[in-house]
């Protein structure tokens, strides 16, 4: 199979409400940034474009169609779209490059979540006969999951607060983060419950924003003469929809994807995990088999800012940047989708 490289990444700052910015205005600065990193003039200089978004975030059908206006698609482009996080657009693009139909690809994900009430919106993602009519929301489902972990004795509320504390600390070095600061476990545990046993800090904030990435074959990356990280493995697996059918204290599909992506074929030094809730970071760290020597979410992760539909792609981008900057040699990136970690993607990146 063809060796694939990540060559450019950019994401917007995570902000709670970006206000008077439409899809095109949200996406375009990130596209311009990744073109500049590679020295390209436009999307015409790559072979394939794929994006991820969700119409319901802002309540309009065909949100992605407007996104095409950011591309300069004249002459027309080879272009596709997933109604998923853009990490899955990356997955589609990797397959496309492996077929030989493309040597390079531009990926982007965008979401303006602020207009709607995200938990209520995502409640309508559930089974339309048994769960969606109850308007059971994603935060509540995560809270049920957290309770199971607490009851099983495998974590404590202090462990959850420690995840949040480290996220905030790490985010102090991330100018794009929405939430950052020096806050300890004890202080976090003083907060009231948002949805017991979850406190507000245990839940990712809702952010508006976009992210973009360029990947290519290693040969193309060398021709471009830009620093790159090799994408040595990528896999994604889904599980049963009904959270009650799964062992919520584990993430089986993450284990499957990690094994298939070759996470443990060599040592790791960084991991960026898409864990929208603090206890999920613990589940995922365990499912990915990460030991304490590995820096988990040095960016602060999504607890410090959560670009819906782009956060998964952004995890890959964070690992890419650390490898290219020389801060890490081999890292794992993770993306999730669906209630209580139903669907998980794992990617492994290594230095050139």
């Amino acid at each position, binding site marked *: 199979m063809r060796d694939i490289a990540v060559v450019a990444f950019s994401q917007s700052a995570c902000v709670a409400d970006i206000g008077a910015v439409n899809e095109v*205005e949200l996406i375009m600065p990130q596209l311009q940034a990744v073109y500049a990193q590679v020295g390209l003039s436009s999307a015409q200089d790559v072979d394939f474009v794929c994006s991820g978004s969700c119409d319901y975030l802002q309540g309009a059908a065909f949100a992605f169609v*407007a996104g095409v*206006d950011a*591309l300069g698609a004249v002459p027309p482009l080879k272009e596709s779209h997933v109604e998923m996080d853009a990490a899955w657009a990356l997955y589609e693009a990797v397959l496309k490059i492996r077929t030989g139909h493309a040597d390079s690809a531009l990926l982007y994900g965008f979401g303006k979540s602020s207009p709607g009430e995200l938990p209520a919106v995502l409640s309508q993602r559930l089974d*339309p006969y048994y769960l969606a009519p109850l308007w059971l929301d994603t935060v509540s489902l995560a809270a049920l999951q957290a309770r199971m972990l607490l009851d099983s004795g495998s974590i404590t509320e202090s462990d959850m607060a420690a995840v949040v504390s480290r996220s905030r600390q790490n985010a102090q070095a991330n100018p794009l983060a929405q939430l950052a600061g020096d806050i300890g476990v004890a202080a976090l545990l003083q907060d009231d419950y948002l949805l017991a046993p979850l406190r507000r800090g245990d839940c990712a904030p809702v952010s508006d924003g976009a992210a973009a990435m360029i990947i290519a074959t290693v040969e193309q990356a060398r021709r471009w003469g830009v620093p790159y990280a090799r994408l040595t493995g990528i896999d994604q697996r889904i599980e049963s929809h009904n959270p009650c059918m799964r062992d919520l204290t584990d993430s089986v599909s993450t284990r499957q994807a990690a094994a298939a992506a070759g996470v443990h074929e060599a040592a790791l030094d960084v991991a960026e995990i898409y864990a929208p809730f603090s206890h999920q970071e613990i589940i995922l760290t365990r499912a990915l088999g990460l030991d304490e020597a590995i820096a988990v979410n040095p960016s602060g992760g999504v607890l410090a800012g959560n670009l819906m539909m782009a956060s998964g792609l952004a995890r890959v981008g964070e690992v890419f940047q650390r490898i290219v900057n020389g801060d890490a040699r081999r890292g794992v990136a993770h993306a999730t989708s669906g209630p209580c970690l139903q669907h998980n993607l794992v990617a492994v990146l290594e230095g050139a």
Partner: protein
Amino acid sequence: MSTARPDVTGIEAPVYLHYHFTAGTAPARFLVRLREGLLSGQRCPRCAKVYIPARGSCPACGVPTTEEVLLPDRGTVQSFTIVHIPIPGNPIEPPYVVANIVLDGANISFIHLLSDCVNEAVRIGQRVEAVWRPPEEWDYAMDNIRHFRPLDEPDVPVERIGTLPVSGPAVPR
């Protein structure tokens, strides 16, 4: 007992979601100008084409657009249809003409109503002008222009539609 009732085969699922929508920068600028009785487009810095309403980018070039171009409220019918069925959320009584209109100085058409005309006589290349509501009714809305109506001018040859220069001053109506 209720066992005699027929089995359940369906449910109603009311899905009502509330949003707080904010218009993007470029559409907002267009609407603010519209409230002043002005038609505002944007010129692409790369290909120099003028878009109205603009979305903030030149869709052909993929670059941001910021230069404002005020356009007159006269234009040309690029194409049209006579609508015979009611459209949800649209109160107009059929049949009525919906036309793709290119304003003078613009390089792109938009859809609007064409009235004060004989439907059967509407044609591609026909010259039209805006009929505005009274200023006190103006809002951030396209229907500040009630409709377009024919102008007594010669038709524009088809190959020139969408390439005409600005025909006159853009002044608040």
